[in-house]
């Protein structure tokens, strides 16, 4: 990977922002995200991606609809997902939505498919968590066939069969860029290689370097299967502010209560100040001044042989000014600095 080809993106989970102490409504947050994507394009970032969640405070339940609105408000930035919960979606509907997005955006649509770390979509759409693995495998098979073949006849366990179906609007031949998002399961890494799809590592806690083995496994499997090298990307959380202190204090204020709640729900570690500082220093939080964040991204790019890094910039109730500042600094200062650092000391790829 050349330094010039290194890509920086932003991820939003549709989280509600605050403004002068007041909380924005769901609808105001939806419109704010469109504005943030426009800002991301204006400051030169490469990709803007939106997640898919089904809980209060998140407004990204209809990801392709949100992205389509951004599509006609921008010209260049690529539009993706972080991640699309394939397991509880219908691959046929997804094809429709993403081929339409690709049309509206003049070919800028892409997506990351995942099994999701939040499981709210399973009861909401009537799926059984016991089928977690099988659902993903079967739906990935169908979704990739819909993208790669003109007319599809298919049958499986979780969806009614298709007989010589051709979907409209058509995607470009071969489909649109499709990544596999993985959270740590080696099986998922091997699956991405099997389908010859690029890999997005979701690293939301701990030392990112522990994923080096996954990256190695991915490249080795691609090679064994006779596929060409494919890009690897990282998604992590964080914020950029003018100084390290400002970033540290602001992020802690909004991140701490959220993680405390998640810790209770999912049994994560408790967010003590000490653990927090450790995450920022050597873990998966990218919080700091432009120089600090740039150095950390460049280090990961080398250690994990990345060609793309996505920063998830929204966290529940974070003031809109802080969100905007992250986007501006990421585009104007972090991106050029990362490229400079990678030019001086290139990655292994």
């Amino acid at each position, binding site marked *: 990977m050349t330094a010039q080809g290194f890509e920086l993106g932003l991820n939003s989970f549709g989280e509600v922002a605050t403004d002068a102490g007041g909380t924005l409504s*769901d609808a105001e947050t939806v419109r704010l995200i469109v504005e943030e994507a426009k800002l991301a394009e204006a400051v030169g970032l490469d990709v803007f991606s939106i997640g898919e969640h089904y809980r209060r405070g998140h407004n990204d339940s209809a990801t392709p609809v949100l*992205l389509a609105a951004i599509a006609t408000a921008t010209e260049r930035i690529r539009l993706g997902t972080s991640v699309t919960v394939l397991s509880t979606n219908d691959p046929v509907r997804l094809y429709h*939505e993403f081929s*339409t997005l690709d049309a509206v955006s003049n070919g800028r649509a892409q997506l990351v498919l995942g099994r999701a770390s939040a499981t709210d979509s399973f009861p909401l759409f009537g799926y059984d968590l016991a089928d977690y693995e099988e659902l993903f495998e079967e739906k990935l098979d169908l979704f990739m066939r819909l993208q790669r073949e003109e007319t599809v006849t298919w049958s499986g366990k979780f969806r009614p069969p298709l007989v010589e179906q051709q979907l409209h609007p058509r995607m470009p031949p071969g489909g649109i860029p499709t990544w596999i998002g993985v959270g740590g399961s080696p099986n998922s890494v091997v699956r991405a290689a099997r389908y010859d799809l690029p890999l997005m590592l979701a690293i939301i806690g701990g030392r990112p370097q522990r994923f080096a083995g996954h990256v190695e496994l991915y490249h080795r499997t691609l090679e064994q299967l006779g596929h060409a090298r494919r890009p690897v990307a990282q998604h992590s959380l964080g914020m950029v502010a003018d100084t390290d202190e400002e970033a540290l204090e602001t992020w802690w204020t909004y991140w701490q209560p959220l993680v405390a709640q998640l810790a209770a729900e999912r049994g994560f570690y408790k967010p003590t100040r000490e653990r927090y500082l450790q995450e920022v220093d050597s873990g998966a939080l990218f919080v700091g001044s432009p120089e600090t964040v740039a150095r950390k991204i460049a280090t990961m790019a080398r250690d994990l042989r990345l060609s793309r890094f996505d920063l998830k910039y929204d966290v529940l109730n974070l003031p809109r000014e802080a969100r905007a500042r992250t986007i501006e600094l990421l585009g104007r200062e972090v991106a050029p600095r990362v490229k400079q650092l990678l030019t001086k000391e290139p990655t292994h790829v």
Partner: protein
Amino acid sequence: MSDLVFGLDTFGDVPQDDSGTPVSDARAIRQVVDEAVLAEDTGVDVIALGEHHRPEFAISTPETVLAGIATRTDRIRLGSGVTVLSSDDPVRVFQRFSTVDALSNGRAEVILGRGSFTESFPLFGYDLSDYDVLFEEKIELFAKLLEEKPVTWSGTKRAPLDNADVFPKTESGHLTTWVGVGGTPQSVIRTAQYGFPLMIAIIGGTPERFAPYIDLYQRATDKFGTTAHPVGMHSPGFIADTDEEARELHWPHYRVIRDRIGALRGWPPIRKEEYEAEIEHGSLYIGSPETVARKMARAIKALGVGRFDLIYTTGAQPISARLRAVELYGSKVVPMVRDILAG
């Protein structure tokens, strides 16, 4: 009659470029976005996009296209026409439309229907023999979701919901929802029962024969104690500078698509005389702005509707002709209809 609402509807027919070559599906979708922007500029009130799953039509997910229109417009209302609720999930439909509503500052309008085409049933794995029960159950769930509170529901065609809260919430607290019907009295009564506004698809024959349905809607709302909203009608047509030009730009494309769909439904090929009779007395609104305006005014008056939507695209009509039709509809036809009805 000043509060009459005028709309343009399309299913995203794939047009041809000026050299007569059909454009790509993707280009067909961008064309609809451009036409919606033009419709707003010329003063049209609503653009409504229908969901189809056939090669002639590029729109299979209306909301994704409407979202693209939302950020390029300020005023025009953004509707579906129709969303095939029977083969969709009401939870997803709500999420998609409440997102469009947010993006457009409250301009989203969903029209729920059973669809006159049935391709979505095998595509999404539904049985046509469940046509009625699917719509019945799903509209019940959708009506609950519209309250924007946690929903507990169970039925036979979808997994149950237990205190499920769905986001994003709308700013107004209510997503505008219509029901589109084609001519089934039971559908009219159901619409009245839920207190939804009624959109009647009149795609052939004299519009007057739908007067009993409107009467039925009003009587049924009385009986249920719900509100009788102004009724809308949706019919196909085309506008050009002269009557001759409009027919020349419409007939060859209409004939192809009418016979292709007719073959599926067991209709004999259409004859030119039938076509002309439909323009004279039936439900094709084709001609110069004056001709179309007079015909629309007559139908609006005869049925007492509060909204008229013209399906303005037919088959592979050229892009330039479509743009001209949109322009003439907003800038000439609509003001003429208003004048005729005021005078």
